[in-house]
């Protein structure tokens, strides 16, 4: 992992196994719900559910600063805690949690490379006992909105051609052949992609064992679509969790400075009255 721009943002499954009982470390399994965690999890870890704990459940938004502070406090996390996040789907929802922790300024938060899949496939210890950490009184240090894009910023970037847009959904979602991932409810009125976006599915950044590809492979992958860090990058998907994964890759593994996650993503853009939509395959990178 040394070749990554910020190798300190990742830990191996070995590292986690060695730090399971480290009081300065809090391991968190993150998924859309806690069903996987309930089956068996990294011993000593706690669980966060994306659908109830990592989003505002009334309005569509990430956690407010106060909600975030409450989650950290109830999770026994202090500002100086090293937080290790892992999850299913090669860390989709784990990356979403890390993105929010970065927004609210947590100093040391890292992903377990390979996520839940690697831990299981290596036959490592699992527990069904839920950890009950002592409550803290967490205060977030900041709210860094530079890591996030809202609709007006995406519209402005599109008009000015000032940023590269990376669509990390599957090719069939990108072209408009399907309106949601196969088997999931359709959540948009129109299929396709934001005009000019490059199609780089999130999974291309991962190896078969769930770990991230090497820095050289990642650099070549994104450069092949004109994404080389020279321009600001806006990543999006359907609801913002897959694009958190790509945001992490671009910002922390490749070290590109200006990368944002547009968490409104296609469930916002694809439902917007009057929004420009491009269908089919994208134009070549050279034309963008």
């Amino acid at each position, binding site marked *: 992992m040394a070749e990554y721009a910020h190798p300190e943002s990742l830990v191996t499954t070995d590292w986690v196994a060695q730090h399971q009982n480290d009081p300065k470390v809090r391991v968190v399994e993150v998924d859309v719900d806690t069903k996987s965690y309930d089956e*068996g999890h990294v011993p000593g870890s706690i669980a966060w559910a994306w659908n109830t704990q990592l989003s505002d459940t009334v309005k569509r938004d990430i956690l407010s600063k106060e909600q975030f502070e409450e989650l950290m406090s109830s999770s026994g996390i202090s500002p100086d805690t090293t937080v290790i996040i892992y999850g299913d789907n090669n860390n989709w929802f784990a990356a979403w949690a890390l993105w929010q922790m970065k927004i609210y300024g947590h100093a040391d938060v890292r992903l377990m490379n390979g996520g839940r899949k690697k831990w299981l496939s290596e036959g490592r210890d699992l527990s069904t006992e839920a950890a009950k950490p002592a409550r803290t009184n967490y205060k977030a240090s900041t709210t860094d909105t530079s890591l996030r894009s809202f609709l007006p910023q995406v519209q402005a970037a599109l008009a000015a051609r000032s940023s590269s847009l990376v669509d990390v959904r599957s090719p069939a979602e990108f072209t408009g052949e399907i309106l949601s991932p196969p*088997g999931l409810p359709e959540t948009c009125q129109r299929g396709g992609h934001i005009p000019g976006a490059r199609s780089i599915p999130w999974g291309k950044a991962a190896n078969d064992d769930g770990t991230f590809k090497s820095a050289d492979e990642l650099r070549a992958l994104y450069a092949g679509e004109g994404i080389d860090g020279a321009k600001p990058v806006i990543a999006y998907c359907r609801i913002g969790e897959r694009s958190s994964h790509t945001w992490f890759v671009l910002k922390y593994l490749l070290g590109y400075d200006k990368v944002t996650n547009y968490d409104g993503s296609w469930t916002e853009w694809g439902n917007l009255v009057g929004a420009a939509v491009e269908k089919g395959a994208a134009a070549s990178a050279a034309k963008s």
Partner: protein
Amino acid sequence: MKAEEFSERTVDVDGWQCRLTSYRLGDVYHCKADNVSPGARLARATGATKEEAETNALKRATELLSRTRRQSV
């Protein structure tokens, strides 16, 4: 407890790829079905055997995948 007999295989369901990830925890076999591209989880199931867990997960995944509509592009 450890995950044992961890395996993955991909099957075709109504023209969609479906990945079955199976493993045993104690005496119970678990299976997760996802849609490969992009990899979203469709179903989870358990069974007394790997085949039973896979059949149960695949049944639910098939129900969901069969509802997916292809649009003309």
